[in-house]
């Protein structure tokens, strides 16, 4: 019977299958960070359990770390305690940790692909919903809660019900200035924030094939914003090219064997998905969110929509609440919305290609006098590469702050936050109320759009922007 890539990976990882119970799924890689793990380790201690496979586990610190000089003491004692707790836990349970002074530390979803740990056909979990990012390399990767973190630590497995499958096909070609971020915002706009609930998505079509691996990471990253736990792209020549020579990728003879296995990871001709969604690449414009869910977005050429035009009474009410929170008037052209802050970074858009794209826009220009803008590279290696290419200087000359890597203002667990009422153009993934700081207002955009907004002080259409 023809199968989807999702079913193939699933079947390769089933440890035990019994009627009336979830499948027991083997986990190839478990990524751990400081925020969602302390109670899991505590649980292990309380029940006298050990970590089954420390050699399939890797820890790092990202959510809480300050993005200022690492040699200075952490300004937040609670954050410091949480980081210290992870150090102690990884030591006690024998798990490797890439700590803040390791060049390879950074946002957990950036560092694992970067080192070649994320590979096609793997099952990957992490106590973080954006684990879906790893799907860009053809892995089945999803976020889990702390109880599940404990479960994986203890057993290297997870009981899971087989998901429904969804094909999201983006056909044709993207216009100039339209990026992976716009593709995923368009998808979420179309399916809604709960359109993917219960599903794993395979992203397909020429537009997805044409994206770089990093672009695919941006798309897979925001899968959870459409309600699906995981989204992936079948491996192809680009995937293989990306992985070749990375430190944790197979080497020598193993490499050839691995490549052969990866090539079989495609959806068979005639395989059926439970749900189909199609978008045309040509119709996607640069998107800007105007509300407090990632589905509340419009093309940059449009205006803030009128709640009366919403599809349902519930959507109307949600839109009305969002406009109040965002302090926006329906009918205002998006390009007339001015901003106070710009954040370029996060696991959505904190990779080297994102920084190159943004630097390209700001080169020779200056951030508007009304705007405070910052760039936070996604990892130590991204930062190092950017500095090699002189991007840090481009940003600094343009008036951006150039920070140390981490999650930073994506969720503001460190001092990088929006003040109440401040409005930001952000390359991150969530525009929920207070996400980037209590009372802060977030508009999600691509790195290029964020960079141009920083210079102009308001949103501009990056197409035709010089």
């Amino acid at each position, binding site marked *: 019977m023809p199968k989807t890539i999702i079913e193939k990976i699933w079947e390769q990882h089933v440890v035990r299958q019994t009627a009336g119970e979830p499948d027991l799924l083997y986990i190839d890689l478990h990524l751990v960070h400081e925020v969602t793990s302390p109670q899991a380790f505590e649980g292990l201690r309380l029940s006298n359990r050990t970590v089954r496979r420390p050699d399939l586990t890797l820890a790092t610190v990202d959510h809480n770390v300050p993005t200022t000089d690492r040699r200075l003491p952490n300004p937040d004692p609670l954050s410091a305690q949480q980081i210290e707790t992870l150090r102690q836990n990884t030591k006690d349970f024998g798990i490797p940790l890439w700590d803040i002074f390791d060049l390879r530390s950074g946002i957990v979803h950036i560092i694992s692909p970067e080192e070649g740990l994320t590979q096609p056909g793997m099952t990957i979990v992490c106590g973080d*919903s954006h684990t879906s990012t790893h799907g860009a390399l053809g892995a089945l990767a999803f976020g889990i809660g702390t109880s599940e973190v404990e479960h994986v630590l203890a057993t290297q497995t997870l009981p899971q019900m087989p998901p429904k499958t969804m094909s999201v096909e983006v056909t044709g070609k993207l216009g100039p200035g339209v990026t992976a971020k716009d593709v995923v915002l368009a998808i979420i706009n179309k399916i809604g924030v709960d359109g993917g609930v219960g599903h794993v998505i395979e992203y397909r079509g020429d537009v997805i094939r044409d994206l770089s691996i990093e672009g695919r990471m941006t798309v897979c990253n925001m899968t959870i914003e459409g309600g699906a736990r995981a989204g992936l792209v079948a491996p192809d020549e680009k995937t293989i090219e990306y992985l070749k020579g990375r430190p944790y990728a197979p080497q020598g003879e193993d490499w050839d064997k691995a490549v052969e296995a990866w090539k079989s990871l495609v959806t068979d001709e005639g395989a059926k998905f439970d749900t189909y969604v199609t978008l045309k690449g040509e119709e996607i414009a640069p998107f800007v969110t105007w509300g407090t869910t990632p589905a509340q977005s419009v093309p940059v050429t449009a205006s803030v929509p009128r709640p009366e035009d919403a599809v349902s009474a519930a959507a109307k009410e949600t839109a009305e609440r969002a406009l109040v929170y965002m302090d926006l008037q329906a009918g205002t052209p998006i390009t007339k919305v001015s901003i106070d802050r710009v954040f370029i970074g996060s696991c959505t858009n904190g990779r080297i290609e994102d920084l190159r794209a943004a630097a390209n826009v700001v080169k020779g220009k200056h951030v508007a006098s009304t705007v405070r803008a910052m760039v936070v590279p996604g990892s130590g290696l991204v930062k190092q590469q950017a500095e090699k290419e002189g991007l840090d200087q481009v940003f600094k000359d343009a008036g951006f702050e150039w920070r140390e890597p981490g999650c930073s203002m994506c969720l503001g667990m460190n001092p990088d936050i929006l003040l109440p009422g401040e409005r930001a153009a952000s390359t991150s993934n969530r525009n929920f109320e207070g996400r980037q700081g209590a009372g802060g207002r977030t508009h999600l955009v691509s790195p290029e759009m964020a960079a141009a907004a920083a210079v102009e002080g308001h949103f501009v259409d990056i197409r035709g922007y010089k």
Partner: protein
Amino acid sequence: MRAIKTVKGNAIPLNRADVDTDQIMPKQFLKRIERSGYGPFAFFDWKKDPTFVTNNPAYAGAPIMLAQQNFGCGSSREHAVWGLEDMGITAVIAPSFADIFRNNCSKVGLLTIQLPQEDVDYLMSRAEELPGGNIVIDVAAQTVSVEGTAWSRHFDIDPFVKHRTLNGLDDIGLTLQHADDISKFEEGRPSLKPDTSRAFTDSLKIG
């Protein structure tokens, strides 16, 4: 986890859709390393509004929360579930839930009950009208009913989750009963898959 057989009491009508876990448990409280004591922080920002529903003393101690579609979307933080649990909530009733949230609830021992929109709307309007009266949830029978009336609805629950919920079974303990299956699977695992043990020794220090 705790066993739940029945839940009886009034319900907090949180009449909003797409309630995300950033709202249920804002980030500043994720810095705690404890497992308990999250109740006072649940809906921290929304609670600043004195008219927010959880501030109404009529709902104090209610074991049920009513909400609209896609409840618990966004971040995977289980702290959101711990917050609801610590507030005294044992069941949430909504037209739909986000996947990770629902999963987290099933591990902690918090019922997520999905009912059709019209039934949620009915319960919501009853709960908004004070006194709302008692809702009774019977896990074994898979019913939600309104005490003193004939109104009763069936709800679906995964049979395995039902079994664990009724008996308060620890998921990890159950899986460890199959340790042999896991070992057997590990023997057959392709040796090409990456392992992280090298990460102990190959550190790359910053300049």
